[in-house]
Every structure is written in structure tokens, then in C-alpha cells.
């Protein structure tokens, strides 16, 4: 031959002369069962592995026909005899497939078998039957399937929306909760963008969020509403994270969403009750605030009646009456606006406007207990994303809380400013009141924690304020020293284009 020959290499013809027992060693060494059948389908060779697995001996195997060696049930299910004959006839090997075989006294095992023709010069003289024991692999595969089914049922029965997407963001799976909440069946959304299912104004935010996740960032909870099939808006808190493959690449994106409808409803009810409760606390101040302009109008009207012919005085009286009524109407207007339930919509707003409304409504309340109210409003503050009515509720509660800390009078300073990090607007409520003992500080935001006597407050004011600020992605901090007063600082993140309200889930 033209090929260079390796002095160490040997040809197959030389194998038998050089290593006479190689075939026996190989046959008995491999972890598979091997049989050789002749044309009459009699066993001419059986290796040790087969004899052990099948619990047979050479005596009752060699020279026996296939049907004497294998149970009839296996032969009929695998059609081993027919297939072996076909291999003799066609000379083509056959990848047989699975065979379940149970020898007497041993557990059932699963084999993968193949049939290979053995030739001499005249043609096919035998068929090699190899059986690989795949019982373990089968068991593992079944375990994997069972775990997969288990996980799938966890996802399916979850109460939260579970959506998985390819790395490019197309929806791959959509669980039952997602179908139920959105009204869209799996088949309608597979292959679409999750952003397309969000409400019109928030699609870009969802795209921004998912593209951050596809870069490996897994972030805060974002609240973005879904537009359901019937067109309804459903607030959903989304937690999105990347799914990594073994090479450390992002294989998929997973979004878990919690339907906030119920929670929003309860919160709205709670806010409404809290509003009504704070109206009760403010009642004295409100009455006074109404009585003053009405009292002035009443006195001016009496004066007008006393001097019907004095035109100069009359004109002035009419003016005072008109002013008084206007002022009383403004009080009623602001009360109604405060008491009215609202839809909870978030807008870009100026925190100073909310402070202004709060102080206008409550200044009299403060005056009743000799509390001087001062405002130091920061100029050119950036807008925040907020619900003005909810924020006014929070500020009202902080205001009333400050007044209650100063039963014999004092000074309440409300200051708005940009934080040093320039990412939040801060509002300080600084009072010169009794202060909060150190041991009470951790509890001031707890529901029903109050130091006031029974009937003077239920202890929900600060809790509600805290929860409102959480809804705005903000927080409240408190610093206090007994006898010197307290400072409650409200922090609200400034409004940005890809704004997200975190912490709501």
C-alpha cells in the first residue's frame, strides 16, 4: 500500500495471531450483553454479561433457538426473530430499540438492542445481538420528566403571572394565572412582546426593563399595568430576572407579576377611612375656620341693616360680606376635595403645591393650639411622580402628628429641598414638641401604635403616611430627641422618563 505503515500498528488479520484471547476478553469485558445467532437463529455465542443478566448457563443457552432463550412475550413485542431474519436477508444492520426484559428472580431491566450482520466471503453467516442496559438512564429520564412535570404544575398553579421569554424578549410560556388575569390565551401571546400587552403609556418602560434584564441586570419591582383582552387595566407588580445557561449566557428572561387589583382596592378603602378619621381630628379647626369668615360677614350684614342709608359704609359692608362668603366657600371646597375618593392616578407634580394645599387646610388647626406654621419651600424643585390626593393625606397626617406633639404650642417648620444626592425631593416636618423616647422610635410607624389617650387617635396616621410614601417609591425617616422635638423627613424620588415605582409588591 502507498500509505506509510506504523511499525506498532497491526492489521485486523494479525490480531488473532498476536492476541489469541482478545475476542474473549473483549466479549467478557464489555458491560453489554452479546449473543451471536446463526441462520437457524440458534445461539452460537453468549458472553458472560448476558449469562449473568439473564441468569442462564452456557449449557441451557448455546445451541438453543432464540425462542428457547427469550420469553415469548419479549419476542412477540420486539419481533426479534423476524428482525434477525431480515438482517440475514438484507445484510443491513438494525438499530433495534428498547427492550424490557425480566429474568427470573431479578428486577425488570431496560435494554437498548442492535442487530449487526457478521460476514465471511460467502455472505452473512451470523447476526450479532448487542443489548446495552439502559435501566439507569431510563430511570433518570423518567425522574427528569417527573420533575419537569412537577415544576410545570407549580408554575401553572401559581397565583402570580409567570411569563418566560427568549433572550430577545418574545414570549415562550404563559401560565394559567397570566391567562386568567389578562384574558389572553397562551396561543394568542406566544411569540409576542410582553410590552405589547402593557397599557399604551407604559410599553417603553417595559421594553427598557426587559432590555436591562437581558443585559443581566435583575432589578427592583416595577409596577406596570396590563391591558386585558376586554380592555381593562390591571395594575401588576413585575419582578424580572434573567435565566442563565451553563455557559453563563442569558438563555431566557422570566417575569413574575402580581395582580395588585385587590390590594389597590383595600388600600383605597383604608386611605378613605383614614381621611375620614383625620377629618374628625380636624373638625374643631374646620369649624373655627368657617366661623371666622361667616362671623365677619354676619357682623358686616348687621352693620348694613343698622345703617341702610349710609352708602359709603354699605358698599364696604357688602364687600366684606362677599369676601367672607368667598373664604367660607374656599374652606368647604378644600374639604370636599380632600374627602373625595380618588382614582389613585399618578402625575408629574410639584411637592410645593401639595404642601401649599395642606397648610391652607390646616393652618387654623395649628393656630388653635398656638402652633406657628412656617414653610421654607425650595425653589425650582424637580417634579415627582405622585398622586396629589394621597400625598396630601400623608402630609396632613404628619402635620396633625406634629401638632399633637405640641399640645401647649410651638413651631412647625415645613421645608422642601432637593437631597444632596439630587435623586429625591425631601420634605422635613420639624416640630418643637415633646419628642419621641428612643424606645418608641422603632414603633412609630406601626399600626395602632399611639401614645395618645383612648379616643384621641387610633394610631394609624403615621402608618398610612408611611404606606403612601412606599407607594411613591419613597420613604419617611424620623429623628427625635425628648424635650427638643422631632423631624420627620419624607423622601420621594424625582420624576424621570423611565420612572418606576418600586417596592410595591
Amino acid at each position, binding site marked *: 500500500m502507498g500509505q506509510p505503515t506504523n511499525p506498532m500498528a497491526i492489521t485486523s488479520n494479525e490480531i488473532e495471531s498476536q492476541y489469541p484471547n482478545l475476542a474473549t476478553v473483549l466479549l467478557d469485558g464489555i458491560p453489554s450483553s452479546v449473543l451471536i445467532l446463526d441462520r437457524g437463529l440458534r445461539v452460537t455465542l453468549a458472553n458472560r454479561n448476558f449469562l449473568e443478566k439473564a441468569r442462564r448457563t452456557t449449557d441451557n443457552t448455546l445451541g438453543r433457538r432464540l425462542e428457547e432463550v427469550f420469553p415469548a412475550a419479549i419476542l412477540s413485542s420486539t419481533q426479534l426473530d423476524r428482525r434477525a431474519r431480515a438482517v440475514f436477508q438484507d445484510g443491513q444492520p438494525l438499530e433495534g430499540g428498547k427492550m424490557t426484559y425480566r429474568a427470573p428472580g431479578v428486577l425488570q431491566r431496560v435494554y437498548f438492542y442492535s442487530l449487526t450482520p457478521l460476514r465471511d466471503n460467502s455472505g452473512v453467516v451470523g447476526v450479532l445481538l448487542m443489548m446495552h442496559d439502559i435501566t439507569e438512564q431510563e430511570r433518570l429520564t423518567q425522574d427528569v420528566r417527573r420533575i419537569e412535570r412537577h415544576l410545570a404544575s407549580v408554575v401553572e398553579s401559581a397565583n402570580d403571572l409567570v411569563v418566560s421569554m427568549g433572550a430577545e424578549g418574545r414570549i415562550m410560556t404563559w401560565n394559567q394565572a397570566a391567562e386568567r388575569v389578562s384574558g389572553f390565551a397562551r396561543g394568542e401571546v406566544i411569540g409576542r412582546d410582553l410590552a405589547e400587552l402593557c397599557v399604551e403609556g407604559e410599553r417603553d418602560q417595559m421594553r427598557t426593563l426587559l432590555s436591562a434584564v437581558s443585559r443581566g441586570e435583575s432589578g427592583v419591582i416595577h409596577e406596570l399595568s396590563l391591558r386585558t383582552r376586554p380592555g381593562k387595566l390591571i395594575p401588576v407588580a413585575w419582578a424580572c430576572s434573567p435565566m442563565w445557561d451553563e455557559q453563563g449566557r442569558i438563555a431566557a428572561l422570566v417575569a413574575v407579576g402580581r395582580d395588585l387589583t385587590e390590594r389597590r382596592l383595600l388600600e383605597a378603602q383604608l386611605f378613605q377611612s383614614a381621611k375620614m378619621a383625620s377629618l374628625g381630628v380636624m373638625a*374643631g379647626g374646620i*369649624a*373655627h375656620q368657617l*366661623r*371666622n*369668615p*361667616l*362671623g*365677619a*360677614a*354676619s*357682623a*358686616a350684614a*348687621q*352693620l348694613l341693616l*343698622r*345703617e341702610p342709608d349710609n352708602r359709603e*359704609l354699605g358698599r364696604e*359692608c357688602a364687600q*366684606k360680606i362677599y*369676601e*367672607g362668603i368667598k373664604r367660607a366657600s374656599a374652606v368647604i371646597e378644600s374639604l370636599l376635595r380632600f374627602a373625595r375618593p380618588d382614582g389613585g392616578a399618578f402625575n408629574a407634580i410639584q411637592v410645593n403645591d401639595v404642601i401649599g394645599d395642606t397648610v391652607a387646610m390646616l393652618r387654623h388647626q395649628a*393656630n*388653635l393650639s*398656638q402652633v*406657628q406654621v412656617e414653610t421654607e419651600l425650595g425653589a425650582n424643585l424637580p417634579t415627582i411622580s405622585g398622586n396629589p390626593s394621597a400625598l396630601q393625606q400623608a402630609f396632613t397626617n404628619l402635620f396633625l402628628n406634629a401638632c399633637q406633639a405640641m399640645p401647649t404650642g410651638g413651631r412647625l417648620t415645613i421645608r422642601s429641598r432637593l437631597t444632596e444626592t439630587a435623586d429625591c425631593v425631601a420634605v422635613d416636618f420639624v416640630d418643637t414638641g415633646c419628642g419621641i423616647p428612643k424606645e418608641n422610635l422603632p414603633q412609630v410607624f406601626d399600626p395602632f401604635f399611639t401614645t395618645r389617650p383612648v379616643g384621641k387617635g387610633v394610631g394609624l396616621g403615621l402608618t398610612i403616611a408611611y404606606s403612601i410614601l412606599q407607594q411613591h417609591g419613597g420613604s419617611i425617616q424620623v429623628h427625635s430627641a425628648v424635650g427638643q422635638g422631632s423631624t420627620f423627613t419624607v423622601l420621594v424620588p424625582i420624576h424621570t422618563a423611565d420612572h418606576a415605582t418600586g417596592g410595591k409588591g
Partner: protein
Amino acid sequence: MNTLHPLTALIVDDEPDLAWALQQNLRLDGWQVAIAHTGNAAIAHVSATPPCIAFVDAKLPDMDGLDVIRRIGELRPEVRVVLISGYYYAEDAEVREAQGKGLIVHFIAKPLDLREVSALARQAADNPRVAR
């Protein structure tokens, strides 16, 4: 011995329009009427030029009206003081105590009846107190 200027009155109320109406009403009755919007202004006015009668609101921005009245009682006990309020009622303990101690000669609830104001002022003019 000197008597107070017979027809001088002081209105102490932080509500300017109400103070104005009271002032106009008493002027029509022939009084000289001064106005103070705060407790401190009232005390300063009383010590400088004690009026025959003072109408004092119970809630003032800088002080409690009853404290202002106590101070007036210490400075010029001869000044007749009428408590006016939209906050207290005649039967409230604070009002009764002030009346019991002679700090106030009368209490009128808001909204005011101007004829009652005129009548109280006339009584004061008819029976001026003598300064010590």
C-alpha cells in the same frame, strides 16, 4: 383718682373684617375704637392707654385669649373685658372660671349680635370703673 376715658374701646381679634365691623358699629355709637390683632399688641395698648372696655377673642395667633385677659387683669383691673369666641361656649369651665374671678364681665359667642355688643359697651360707659 382718675377715671378711664369714658368712651374708649379696644377690639382684640385676628380676624380683620370682624374687627372692622365691630369698630364701625361702636363708632356709630360714639366710641373711639382701637384694634389689636395679637395678644402682645393688646397688652401693649392696654398698658399705654387703658380703654374703658375691651372685647377679646379667645384664640389669638400668638397667645391664648384667656392669658391675655389675665395679663390685662394684672395690669389694669379697671378695664372691663368681654370675652368673644367661636370656640368656647358660655357653660365651659374656662369661661365660668374667668367670670367667677371677675376677669371678664361677659361672654359673647360668635357669630356676634352687634346690638348685644352696643348694649355691653353702653353699660360700661354708664358705670365706669375707677383706676387704682
